[in-house]
């Protein structure tokens, strides 16, 4: 069975595919958020050291993960758009940026709420906090560069260059701030070691992460559809859509 993948690289056919996928991801996100929050608030035990305040990790850790994943995915799509001149990839990159910036902000905000009772301060100049803040700056730089350029094709390509330069810099920034100063605890969950936390907490956190993925995919697809309509408004197929709607 040969699937013609390139069929969906055309904005016109992707528009309808995305329209079918959005409800699926939305429902998945709602169910998983409900389950994840239930585990987070009612099933997971109270931490003996941190009390109830630790429960913020159920949103803090997924948001921090998403902020980094989404930047890399955004850069990959932007890079594909730059290399192969595919319009849809660049539209995806543009659609990812606001969601990524939102998760970055959420990670910083929830981190500050957690830091006040735990460390006694809203903000410390620590490696992870600082690099997350710089990540937010990189997202904002990408979005404002695209917003400043009127020609969408030039905006796509210029955004791709700055996104890729940012990806090269993220490890450098991360290690430079890490050597510079550090207070944030090391990663509790890693691929190479067994997790250092209770199983229910881990389950709750993973479910919340998948819920965040589903939410991000749904929102990004909705935004991509809007961008497609905006850019293709002069084409025949969008004209037909409008004809059907009337």
């Amino acid at each position, binding site marked *: 069975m040969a699937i013609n993948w390139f069929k969906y690289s055309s904005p016109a056919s992707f528009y309808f595919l995305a329209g079918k996928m959005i409800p699926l991801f939305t429902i998945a996100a709602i169910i998983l958020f409900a389950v994840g929050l239930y585990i987070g608030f009612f099933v997971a035990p109270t931490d003996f050291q941190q009390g109830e305040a630790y429960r913020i990790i159920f949103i803090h850790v997924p948001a921090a993960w998403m902020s980094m994943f989404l930047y890399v995915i955004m850069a990959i799509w932007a890079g594909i758009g730059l290399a192969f001149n595919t319009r849809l990839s660049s539209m995806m990159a543009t659609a990812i940026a606001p969601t990524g910036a939102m998760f970055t902000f959420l990670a910083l905000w929830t981190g500050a709420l957690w830091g006040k009772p735990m460390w006694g301060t809203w903000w410390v100049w620590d490696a992870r906090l600082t690099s997350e803040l710089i990540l937010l*700056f990189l997202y904002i730089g990408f979005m404002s*560069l695209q917003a400043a350029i009127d020609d969408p094709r030039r905006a796509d390509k210029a955004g791709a260059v700055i996104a890729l*330069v940012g990806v090269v810099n993220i490890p*450098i920034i991360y290690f*430079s701030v890490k050597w510079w100063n550090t207070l944030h605890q090391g990663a509790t969950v890693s691929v190479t070691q067994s997790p250092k936390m209770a199983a229910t907490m881990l389950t709750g956190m993973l479910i919340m992460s998948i819920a965040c993925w589903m939410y991000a995919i749904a929102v990004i697809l909705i935004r991509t559809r809007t961008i497609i309509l905006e850019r293709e408004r002069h084409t025949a197929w969008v004209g037909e859509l409008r004809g059907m709607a009337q």
Partner: protein
Amino acid sequence: MSLWVIQRDLLLAMRRRSDVLTTLFFFIIVVSLFPLGVGPEINILRTMAPGVVWVAALLASMLSLGRMFSSDYLDGTLEQMLLSPQSLSMLVLGKALAHWLVTGVPLVLMSPVLGIQYDLSADALLVLTASLLLGTPVLSLIGAIGAALTLGLRGGGVLVSLLVLPLYIPILIFGAGAVEASAAGLGAGAHLSLLGAFLLASLVLAPWATAVSLRISME
């Protein structure tokens, strides 16, 4: 080829000396403002000095980025450069190095004098100058990418700071860190080596990324 561009840009800069001096005086004024704002407590000033000088160098280098391509863009020279059979990366490398010679080198030469204002020891002054000597070319090279991307855009000056300043952060950390490490008796070798590594990496990668950006901006 790069040499030709460097020579040309230096000649142009010498014909408009006020541009060079504005950047230098901006640097001096910013560094001199800090003691006025913080107060003349010499111990505080001594610990602040490397950071203050480095942040001022970052800002001065960034403010002059707009000039790197804009006049060539306006009079059409840049278009001729893009059409020429020479490698665009080499041309860009020449322009970035010329930018460094015009804006970076005067800052490096001026920094020991400003360091004395902050009562730095002779060793610290030496390390500060060495770190600026290694770090300021990286600022020009990375800044060239931002300057090329924002070419001809409205509000390009503010936008370039948003794009470039986050990328400058590692240079700031290791540049200022070199002085602090030598003051703490750890030796500045590691920090200076890393700055040298950044310089070599950006010498190879930044002109290439700038050339791609210029082609996008000039389409």
